[in-house]
């Protein structure tokens, strides 16, 4: 067949110079369409001799494939170009603000309570809770603070009002979480390891006192627990809580009605430039009270003091939160100032644990 080469050249040239999809479609109909030039040539095959056909057939088929491929490639190219052109017009100012999303926060008291819980849980201490309105027996008598004890006066206790005719001694708002220790002893007996975190109340309000604050107390009872164990537990706690490698604790003899011997515990620290650093320096910071549980307290808790002994300690959650996170004012903890909540609060997913660490 003559003129195939010329046809190929003409068609391919037309394809490559097609301006848009419509021109391309026109070209397709005119070449490989039913009545297109290539199709018409293929019809001629029937009138050929077998020898001629053997040559012309494959040549025509090849031409047809080539034209189809060229059309498809050109079509894809045109589509890309059109898309590119459209995308060029779809420009956004991506410096505009995103859709806003509220960010919630966890209060430092909750966060620090969770931190303390994570640490003591690892040492086998469960978390015990109890009522905040307490009978004076749980809050005082059971803790070896009889009615005339000066500690009752010194604790600035809040009393609940009593109806006329109700002759019971007035209930109190618990002045410490120690009544929970008594309740735990009565409920579970010995051996026992619990911490008791929660709200406590004292009638005091000034720069450094609020009528409500938070305490966590710890209690461990077994046959041979000693004050040396207490010191170790507190050393481990302070190191882990303040996230320092080493810390020095000083036990100072003191007195609490519910422990004997009793000790106030100071940690070595420095206040250089108003910044607290735990574990170094020449200052001492009083952070908790502790001691060996008084035999009378064990008895009140239904535990035989000739068989069991143990330690107890207590500290302020708000206070250790202030120390660790550099929060200056206790009163602001309870003011719910949104700026404060956002600044000192913690992200919901910052759940303290021991494998990732307590704080970020």
């Amino acid at each position, binding site marked *: 067949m003559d003129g195939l080469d010329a046809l190929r050249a003409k068609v391919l040239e037309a394809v490559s110079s097609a301006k848009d999809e419509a021109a391309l479609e026109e070209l397709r109909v005119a070449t490989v369409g039913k009545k297109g030039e290539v199709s018409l040539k293929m019809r001629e095959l029937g009138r050929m001799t077998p020898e001629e056909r053997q040559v012309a057939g494959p040549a025509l088929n090849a031409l047809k494939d080539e034209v189809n491929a060229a059309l498809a490639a050109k079509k894809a190219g045109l589509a890309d170009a059109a898309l590119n052109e459209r995308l060029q017009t779809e420009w956004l100012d991506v410096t505009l603000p995103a*859709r806003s*999303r509220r960010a919630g926060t966890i209060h430092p008291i909750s966060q620090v309570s969770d931190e303390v819980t994570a640490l003591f849980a690892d040492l086998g*201490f469960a978390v015990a809770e109890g009522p905040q309105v307490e009978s004076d027996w749980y809050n005082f008598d059971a803790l070896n603070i*009889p009615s*005339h004890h000066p500690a009752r006066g010194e604790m600035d206790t809040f009393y609940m009002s009593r109806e006329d005719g109700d002759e019971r001694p007035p209930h109190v*708002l618990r002045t410490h979480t120690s009544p929970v220790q008594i309740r735990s002893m009565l409920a579970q007996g010995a051996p026992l390891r619990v911490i008791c975190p929660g709200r406590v109340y004292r009638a005091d309000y000034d720069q450094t006192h609020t009528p409500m604050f938070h305490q966590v107390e710890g209690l461990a009872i077994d046959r041979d627990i000693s004050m040396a164990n207490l010191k170790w537990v507190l050393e481990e706690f302070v190191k882990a809580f303040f996230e320092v490698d080493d810390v020095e604790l000083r*036990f100072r003899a003191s007195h609490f009605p519910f422990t004997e011997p009793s000790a106030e515990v100071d940690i070595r620290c420095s206040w250089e430039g108003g910044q607290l650093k735990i574990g170094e320096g020449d200052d001492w910071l009083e952070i908790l009270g502790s001691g060996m549980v008084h035999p009378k307290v064990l008895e009140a808790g239904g535990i035989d003091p000739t068989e069991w002994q143990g330690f107890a300690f207590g500290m302020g959650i708000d206070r250790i939160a202030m120390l660790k996170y550099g929060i200056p004012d206790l009163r602001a903890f309870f003011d719910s100032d*949104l700026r404060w909540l956002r600044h000192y609060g913690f992200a919901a997913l910052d759940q303290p644990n021991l494998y990732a660490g307590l704080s970020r």
Partner: protein
Amino acid sequence: MKFTLSWLKDHLETDATLDEILYALTDLGLEVEGVENPAERLSAFTIGYVAKAEKHPDADKLRVCQVETDGGKTQIICGAPNAREGIKVVVAKPGVYVPGIDTVIGVGKIRGIESYGMMCSEREMELSDEHDGIIELPSGEIGQSFTHWLEENDPAKVDPVIEIAITPNRPDALGVRGIARDLAARGLGKVKAQERASVPGAFASPIDVSIDADATEACPVFYGRVIKGVKNGPSPAWLQDRLKAIGLRPISILVDITNFFTYDNNRPLHVFDANKVSGDLRVHLSKGGERMVALDDKDYTLDAGMTVISDANGIESLGGIMGGAASGCTEETVNVFLEAAFFDPIRTAHTGRKLKINSDARYRFERGIDPEWTPEGIEHATRMIMDLCGGKASEVVMAGQMPDHSRAYKLDTDRVQSLVGMEIPGEEQRKTLTALGFTLEGDMAHVPSWRPDVLGEADLVEEVARVASLTKLEGKPLPRADVGVPKPVLTPMQKREQAARRMLASLGYNECVTYSFIDQPSAELFGGGSDATKLENPISTEMSHLRPSLLPGLLQAAARNQARGFMDLALFEVGPAFHGGEPEDQQLVASGILVGHSGPKDMHAARRPVDVFDVKADAEAVLNAIGAPAKVQILRGAEEWWHPGRHGKVCLGPKKVLAVFGEIHPKVLTAMDIKGPAMGFTIWPAEVPFPKTKSATRPALHLRDLQAVERDFAFVVDQNVEALVLVNAAAGSDKALIQDVRVFDEFSGPKAEEQMGAGKKSLAITVRLQPSEKTLTDEEIEAVSAKIIEKVSKAAGGTLRG
């Protein structure tokens, strides 16, 4: 408790430095709260000599002095009348801080002539109120430190004042002698022997004493005597100095002496003006209703059962607390009756608390004084009175008998090791106890009369460990209770509390911790404020009642934040609420509020006022997080602080309310001064049923490969028909086939009524059909659709919207 170093050294023979003493005090449990060491304040002042003094050319009252100091000859202008040649003076050179005038001395010109320092008066150095002229020293070297001179010549002026905190168990340390005893036991010297004072009586006491039979417990023993012909007046300087140093105001010799023994030996005393006492004294219990004007000039009305001392005129003194004004001593007192008694700590504490009298005597008697020293004390006081005021003492009269305080406990020297974890040799333990005044008989330790706090073996351990120093205690690992991976410790409720808290924070709420008590009006708005929840002694009216709900506290927080300009708020709290005043009337709740808009103004038009469906979604998310079942009822009829038409109770049955959500009643918002509207919710985590069995295994998941089909239906129903009715009816029409029913549109309001008739609205639902065996045919879909239409029409009283 305050005392001075020299006072301590009256009782303690020691070479220890001040710092060593301070360290030991704190370490022994007598925590040092403050030290005032005047020597430190005055360390820069030196002694000078006025070599020449001339009148200032331009001022009659000023003198130009040439003063020899450690820095050579210096010119100082001085206005003191006694500034003259030849005297030794105290010089503050430029740069020295002068406490009495609160000024750092500089170089200055006074009327044109330069002055290089200041010569000081006693007042300027805060040594006394003396300001008639500058100090003239009788001795001293030029350039010598003035504090060194004072230490040698007038030690009281540079006597360090030490203040320690006394724990309630240590009344013995409320006397300087007791403090000395502790320090001696620690090895810081020796307690000086106290000579026995004995003043024989020259005549029989004209005033006798008796104790009523029912008062022998309140006042077991009473000693007294008359001293005639005393001359009261101001105390000598040494006594005044002592009292002033520890913050007491000198009053008169007689009163000052009683104060002296109160602090010196923890021995409160009382002196009556014997001329004002009529007849004998009788110790008895008050009947109630009596009145007495005490030495503080206040009129007290007594309850029954208070320990009082009366004469023929009536009640003259509140035993162990405060004397009466009528029989009190004055400057003119000539004859006195001196009292030394022992009053019961418990009764003293109750009386003192009831009458709100805080006296040094009460403070000591309620903690417990040394009864054995009562007869000794009266002799010592008699002698001091006679030494300082003259007079003649009668014989001592006595009533009652010395209370028996004798007791002994077994000293188990191994106990220190097992309880404290310190190894202290037995001999040392015995030595410590002996030094503290215990008497050891075999292994029994007899408690000294001044230690009412020692009441068992554990106390002996405490004494030994305290004196040995707990600072030396070495930590020892506490073995795990169980070997291996620690078990989880939180209870299911504690886990719920945490889950609720973290879920709410992740939903964008800020956690608050608000006070457990609020004002009564706010409490009343939320069903509280009853007398059962009232505090007897609230700190203010803002905090008078236990909160019945967390909502009022959160709303108050919202109001405070609105006042600061923050109008879009999402606040929550998880904590206790109180429905009564008994310990069991407390429950854990989680509450949240939304106020204002969903977010700040923005360009995405996403900002809208918060509404009921925001808090509904959040409450549902929390319920889901704490394990509440997905299928719940939403009922109405919650308490009156909710908007009556815009709230729902999330219930499992009509009585089992898991949560309430809704809009807060506008009246409540007005009352609490909140710019509303405000949405809120309250969740009671304990109400959510706990699973009966706990298993980590999930039920098997059955996935269907067959395609699900969704069909939409719109129904015309009455306005008050609730969507849940349609959903439940549709879901119930073929439980096997219908997987899910969702409301996707509500069309109501005037336009809707125009189309569908008055009081009508349209609700549209999507029903998802999930075949399990074979693909649904059109006929099957039609059949199920017909059933849905029938069921919904029947249940909701509606028709399919054309």
